[in-house]
């Protein structure tokens, strides 16, 4: 009997469509795998009935000879940042514990419309703030990977750590992620899977709990470039309910996938050679260059001179927006309310938010409030916006010389949970290579490259021109075919 949990999106979709197996068999297998993987703590809630109902609907359609959709028969994990109608949506926070929306986010609705089903709501860093999945109110997520020779719990990355852990552990063939400053790419790199953040505006933000509105983008996380292409097609598209949504048709990325890079130029940004980057990462970068050259591409040096300012600018802009976006969690209309005896309105705000937000969320709300306050606004926020413009211009110039940029996804491999808790700045450095593309709104993807000497996965990042997800996916495919990354975490859960 086939072990369905080893199958990816494309294999499941094609197998169900071709009658090799039923969607229900697949859903049952994954439901069982999810139930058996509680130790990963990847899910906040599981929704086996949702997955089964969607599977049955797909099987029924097949029986009637109807179109099964782009994701027909594929059960997925849904990051708990997406509002799902009638299913608890928390952003991994206490303040939204028990909150069941009366609406479905545009992206999740599109996935259901495309035939996917939901295995459950995936754990994440609280309000998507974090790079290790240690800020969730519902506990850390464990990576399925272990550092060779140790039994320490490893970070699956963040904020989409539930997503990366679940996909890497084969308890979900794919999952949604969101990426504000690397939250899809860094966890993908840490767990040996693929993840793409499309151009800002490709996926609707409607119904996604906001962290930093000008940066937040949803995207797929899966084990192959093909699977990402398929799922992104299902997720993307113009949404009149999101004023920043791109009014463009969704290309048929899957059909146009090609690992032949003849005539393409791949840029290598010299500023990404930073102190503190693991030698193994630098080595894998070299290997990546060789693979793309082998695929027919020409390798060119490019410069992104403002790279070193990107991370500080990000840590002003994102908290500034977050401090305002999170003001709505005030205990008045929904979610947690802490009303001490005799308390007035201000006391209720203070008590509710003190109890409802975790430390990292509070840290960022404080930073954001500070940088927007009178007298500091120009020094921080205005400067950061100028840097953002310069970073975007860097990319524009670089893309005059190349079609796609190759860089590491992260400066290091995964680290043990708890090892960076007292050092937020080092934690923030995890996203140093991911943040520039976020500031510029560019499509960017992480693909698995190799396993380091500790037995941990390393990823490579591809950054494309605006709207050129295809170029990113194609270069990713070229690496995937040559890297031959087939390592799997050993099951310990």
């Amino acid at each position, binding site marked *: 009997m086939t072990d369905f949990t080893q199958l990816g999106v494309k294999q499941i979709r094609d197998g169900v469509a071709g009658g090799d197996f039923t969607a229900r068999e697949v859903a049952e297998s994954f439901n069982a795998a999810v139930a058996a993987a509680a130790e990963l703590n990847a899910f906040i809630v599981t929704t086996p009935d949702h997955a089964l109902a969607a599977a049955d609907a797909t099987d029924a359609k097949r029986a009637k000879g109807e179109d099964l959709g782009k994701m027909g028969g594929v059960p997925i994990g849904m990051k708990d940042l997406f509002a799902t109608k009638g299913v608890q*949506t928390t952003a991994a926070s206490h303040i939204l514990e028990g909150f069941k929306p*009366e609406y479905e986010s545009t992206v999740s609705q599109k996935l259901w419309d495309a035939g996917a089903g939901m295995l459950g709501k995936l754990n994440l860093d609280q309000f998507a703030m974090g790079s290790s999945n240690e800020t969730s109110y519902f506990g850390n997520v464990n990576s399925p990977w272990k550092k060779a020779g140790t039994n320490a719990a490893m970070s699956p990355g963040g904020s989409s750590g539930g997503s990366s852990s679940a996909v890497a552990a084969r308890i979900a063939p794919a999952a949604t992620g969101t990426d504000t400053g690397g939250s899809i790419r860094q966890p993908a790199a840490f767990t040996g899977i693929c993840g793409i953040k499309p151009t800002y505006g490709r996926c609707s933000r*409607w119904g996604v709990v906001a962290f930093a509105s000008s940066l937040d983008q949803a995207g797929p996380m899966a084990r192959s470039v093909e699977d990402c292409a398929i799922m992104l097609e299902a997720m993307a598209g113009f949404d009149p309910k999101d*004023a920043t949504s791109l009014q463009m048709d969704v290309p048929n990325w899957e059909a146009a996938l090609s690992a032949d890079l003849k005539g393409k130029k791949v840029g290598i940004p010299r500023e990404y050679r930073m102190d503190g980057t693991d030698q193994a990462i630098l080595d894998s970068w070299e290997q990546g260059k060789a693979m793309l050259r082998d695929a027919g591409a020409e390798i060119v040096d490019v410069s992104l001179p403002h790279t070193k300012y990107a991370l500080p600018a990000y840590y002003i802009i994102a908290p500034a927006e977050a*401090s305002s976006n999170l003001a709505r969690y005030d205990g008045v209309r929904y979610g947690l309310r802490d009303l001490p005896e005799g308390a007035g309105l201000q006391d209720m*705000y203070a008590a509710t938010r003190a109890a409802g937000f975790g430390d990292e969320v509070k840290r960022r709300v404080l930073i954001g409030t500070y940088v*927007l306050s*009178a007298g500091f*606004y120009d020094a921080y926020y205005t400067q950061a916006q100028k840097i953002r413009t310069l970073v975007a211009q860097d990319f524009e110039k670089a893309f005059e010389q190349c079609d796609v940029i190759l860089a590491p996804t992260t400066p290091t491999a995964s680290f043990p949970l708890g090892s960076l808790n007292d050092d937020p700045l080092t934690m923030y450095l995890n996203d140093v290579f991911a943040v520039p593309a976020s500031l510029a709104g560019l499509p960017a993807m992480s693909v698995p490259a190799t396993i380091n000497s500790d037995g941990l996965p390393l990823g490579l990042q591809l950054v494309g021109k605006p709207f050129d997800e295809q170029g990113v996916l194609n270069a990713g495919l070229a690496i995937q075919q040559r890297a031959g990354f087939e390592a799997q975490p050993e099951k310990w859960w």
Partner: protein
Amino acid sequence: MSTYRIQGATGEWEVVIGLEVHAQVTSNAKLFSGASTAFGAEPNTQVSLVDAAMPGMLPVPNRECIRQAVRTGMAIEAQINKWSRFDRKNYFYADLPQGYQISQLYHPIVGEGALHIEADEKAGIPEDKIIGIERIHVEQDAGKLMHDQHPTMSYVDLNRVGIALMEIVSKPDMRSPAEAGAYVRKLRSILRYVGSCDGNMEEGSMRADVNVSVRRPGEEFGTRTETKNVNSVRFVMQVIEYEANRQVDVIENGGTVDQETRLFDPNTGTTRTMRSKEDAHDYRYFPDPDLLPLELEDSFIEDCRASLPELPDAKRARYENELGLTPYNARELTAEVETFGRFETLLAATAAKIGKPEAKVATQVANWALSVAPGVAKSLGDEADMANATAEAQASILAMQDKGEISGGQAKEIYEFVLKDGGDPEAIADEKGLKQVSDTGAIEAAIDEILANNEDKVEQYRGGKDKLFGFFVGQTMKAMQGKANPAVVNQILKAKLDG
């Protein structure tokens, strides 16, 4: 130059006034959500997911609200900014679900403009004046707290949350309560002409923040106070009067005016401190990242301009120059949308009925509309059913008068019957015998009798005592029971006496 001065113990003080008027945009839906804007609905029945600031909800600008703001800008001859942007004004309050108001601080949609107020000696405005307008921006309204529903808690009604407001900010160009009153009235009139705000101050569709300071005439501006949410023209004027005198007292007693936000108490006509500068919020304005900058296309701007109606100043000039109305009549008729609307309908109906150009009958119609008709309605009080005051009926009365079939007095009488019971004025005139006699035979007979009975007076008249002509007219009218057409009477008398 305004001559309004506060007479202090140490001399004269001039008052400097600027107004920020919040006008609710006339639109079926809110500024960033599809929820309805109707007034007076049950609490929390007109609230969308966006208005309630549910997680993940996003604002999408309502084109109609933007259009109304642009049209308003054009009506005050302001610069229309083709590129503007929304900012968030952050503060916590229970009537503000998002925790921020979406407004436009840095780049408003409408830039500098101007509003003309007319001289009004009686009101204390010696000459025409132009009041500068700094800007108009659009923003969301907040909800409403209800403190009388529960002994220890306040309830929140979110119906008003997210309704579009225009904030119209004047320059500190006004110098007297009268000027400020004229400014608000004129602004209200323009908004109502344009149709961008219903101007209903009682329902809160229009309210003003009143900035007042005092100074020695010609010197630098003093420190200002801002009195919030004043909701009638009279109150605006009261606030200025009270604040100016209060500030003069403070300064003359050796104190300094604090820059602060104040509240007006309509019951006492006074203002009191709401919060001082030290307590002022830090609103942490920044561009709303959920919204792209607002870029207006040329075609959109052209459509807005093409849809503008004739505005008060232009209409007034046309009434004077083309219709030949007096400046007083022209001003009265153009002050309110309803007034000129009724007038123009009646004018058209009357001109059509009589078969003359509008300009030939405009004065008659204006006098009727401004003085005669309201006088009749007022004298009837509750007996008048204004639903009967149709343009058709009034035009019919005016046409009979124009043709000499009825006198002015008869016109009023007929109109009385029309207002009370409705009906066709011509039929009423016939039925009630309210028509002038233009039958020369009957009039001639009456005159012959009067002349025969007053031979002495006829002699005197013919001897040069012209004034006696009035006597003969009076006698004739009396004999005819007031129903003779005076013009015919004059003509026949003249012929018989002078002939």
